[in-house]
């Protein structure tokens, strides 16, 4: 299985400068956060579906859909019950479900999933190295942005090692399903020690490998890939500014909230 959500294809979004995509992602969050009413968020969600699928976010969607459904359901149920409202739809003391709460719950569910989907579109159309380069252009120190990109690489590797360790201990009769919190915590000890020891060893080796290849040098770093700011970036950013500024304006005018 590939370690990344990146999708190898040539879409409009793939061709954009990473900085445009980072700013675009942030602006999409602004637009999503502007509204709480589902009828206002829904058009935004529909708007991103086609470019998102063209950029290959469908693969990521395929991998995280259970999480999206869980988030959607949890938001809808929690806000649906606890959001204060006036128009009672159903009442069972001490709880009462209101129309406002249901709308707000639905709005939150769509909003969170919209933001998650925008994140997926970003990852599907942006290599992690391009993301790092984009952050560097925006003035974030390379060591910081590189550390962020490494975490994407290390998580699946650590998870693979953890699976091996779980198998090794199961061969020795380890059961982690024992009852009682304390017992269960102790049951995890044979897993935690080797997992941490192996993670420490690996990060140590990684640090050695990085510095052996010149990482940390005072020389100004160059990039292998060339990132050009083109006309399509201007169009994309203008569109994103219009959408986000429009959303904020509509909200300031008193619309879009439950």
């Amino acid at each position, binding site marked *: 299985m590939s*370690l990344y959500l990146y999708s190898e294809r040539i879409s409009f979004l793939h061709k954009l400068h990473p900085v445009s995509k980072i700013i675009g992602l942030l602006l999409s969050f602004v637009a999503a956060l502007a509204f709480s009413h589902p009828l206002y968020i829904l058009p935004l969600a529909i708007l991103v579906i086609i470019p998102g699928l063209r950029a290959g976010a469908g693969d990521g969607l395929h991998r995280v859909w259970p999480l999206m459904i869980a988030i959607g359901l949890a938001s809808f149920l929690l806000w649906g019950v606890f959001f204060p409202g006036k128009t009672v739809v159903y009442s069972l003391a001490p709880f009462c479900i209101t129309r406002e709460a249901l709308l707000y719950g639905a709005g939150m569910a769509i909003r969170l999933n919209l933001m998650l989907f925008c994140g997926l579109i970003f990852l599907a159309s942006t290599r992690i190295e391009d993301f790092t380069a984009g952050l560097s252009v925006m003035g974030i120190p390379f060591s910081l942005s590189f550390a962020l990109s490494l975490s994407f690489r290390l998580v699946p590797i650590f998870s693979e090692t953890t699976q091996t360790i779980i198998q090794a201990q199961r*061969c020795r*009769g380890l059961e982690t399903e024992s009852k009682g919190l304390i017992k269960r915590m102790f049951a995890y000890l044979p897993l935690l020690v080797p997992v941490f020891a192996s993670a420490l*060893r690996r990060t*140590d080796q990684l640090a050695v490998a*990085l510095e052996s*290849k010149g990482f940390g*040098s005072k020389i100004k770093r160059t*990039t*292998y890939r060339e990132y050009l700011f083109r006309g399509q970036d201007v169009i994309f950013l203008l569109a994103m500014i219009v959408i986000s500024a429009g959303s904020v304006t509509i909200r300031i005018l008193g619309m879009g909230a439950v």
Partner: protein
Amino acid sequence: MRKITYLQEPGEAVAIVGRSGAGKSSLVRCLNRIIPKFFPGDFQGQIGLFGKDIRGLRPFELADRVGVVLQDFESQLFSSQAELDVAFGPENLGLGREEIQRRVSEALARVGMLDYRERDPGTLSGGQKQRLAIATVLALHPRILALDEATTDLDPVGREEITSIVRQLGQGAISLVLVEHEPEELRMVDRVVILKQGMVEREGPVEEILGDVEGLETAGVRPPDAAKLFSEMGFAERPIRVEQAVELLQRAGERFSETGIQRLRVLDQEASNGVGDTILHVEGLGHSYPGGTEALKGVDLQVREREFLAVVGQNGSGKTTLVKHLNGLLRPTRGEVFFQGRSIKESSVSELGKEIGFVFQNPDHQIFSSSVKEEIAFGPRNHGFSEKDIKDRVERALELVGLTGLEKSDPFIMTRGERQRVAVASILAMGPRVIILDEPTTGLDYTEQVAVMEMLAELNRKGHTIIIITHTLWLVARYAHRVVLMAEGRIIAHGGSREVLARRETLARASLKPPEIIEIGEAFGFPTLSVQEFIGLARESA
């Protein structure tokens, strides 16, 4: 390390050998100041590269002079595309884009990976990853290239590929420093340096050092079969290659005794008949991983009680996937596994663990206790044995693996060979009849490898069925009764060790080569599994 004086000429290829802990890796790590930068300690002396003192420099300041490739290639690759990994070093050097692009293409071409430039390194095979790791260093245009056991995890053909790439590099302007164990790889260098307890024990031209059988064995290095054979036969010559040995032996008029050959054939048959009934039985086994990779494509296998079976094949041939089905760690996508005639479908890994033990390749993936005793007691305790019983089991297991007296030792500070023994003991303590070991000798020096295999042979003699996964064929020749050869998820050959290991073409399909002693024997009409067998046949004839 203690007072090491080491000199290397520009363009020279030098191998550094020695037992585990002799200071080989430490010496390599001093070349670009990983020591003392990452491993501080009492550091004395001076290192000069091309006439310049490197004291006070940091590893990144030496990146364009010294390239170091480590054994664990996974930790050296961290990009989402092969070419980006190669570009990482030149980018850090602040080179212009065109220059980086030129170097990336050049480095990938030198290791034969140009066609893979856009691949995600995570999806490459072990050999390809290691070649890529070398390319990432070559792109820095180092004048010294150091490989610290960089081929240990590869199958023989993968090792040979890397060796030939490195040999070509060595013929150019690059100076090579290799930390190696295997004589096949050592033969390519100009000079060998033997380290012992942190000091240079001996150094000399490769022919001279590889011919010094006793010296190599003392240094924890396996001598070439040819040299070992001549040493044991009492000849003055010390050939280090098969062809040399065969020519000299033919010139000396050596030949095999026909009756001796017949006797060995009978012994092979007896060994095959001497084992018990079928204990594990695999029928039409298929396995596909969630990503869709079909790792096993219909495998049938029978393992008999008290047999010593070796499962061999190249990296990614399905060996580990196969044996993980034998104790239920993996469940078949199709087909079935039977233990003592009963399907294991309904049994848990924990239940099967009492009968079928599994020792993982890396002992550090299971060790967690602060004492050897507690580590070994973990399995029996999980299975609910009484404290008295656990104590007896721990003692017996320690005795079997030769660690009696080390009950209170901290496994974390033991050598890799000792930790491997602790791992085996922790499985033995549960009293399994079958013990499966995945690559039990990886990362061990020759002396440790032989010690671990002798221990397994002893367990086998005491009635345990042993199944090992390996691609170290000289170990198979010496210890296994039967061999299962795998390639691309299928068994492509199985049978007695002598029969399978002599099938050069079939082995080649699995990226393997017959052990050298078999090749020497075959030149005289019979594939000999060990130096002793060869000598026996030759002496009988005389």
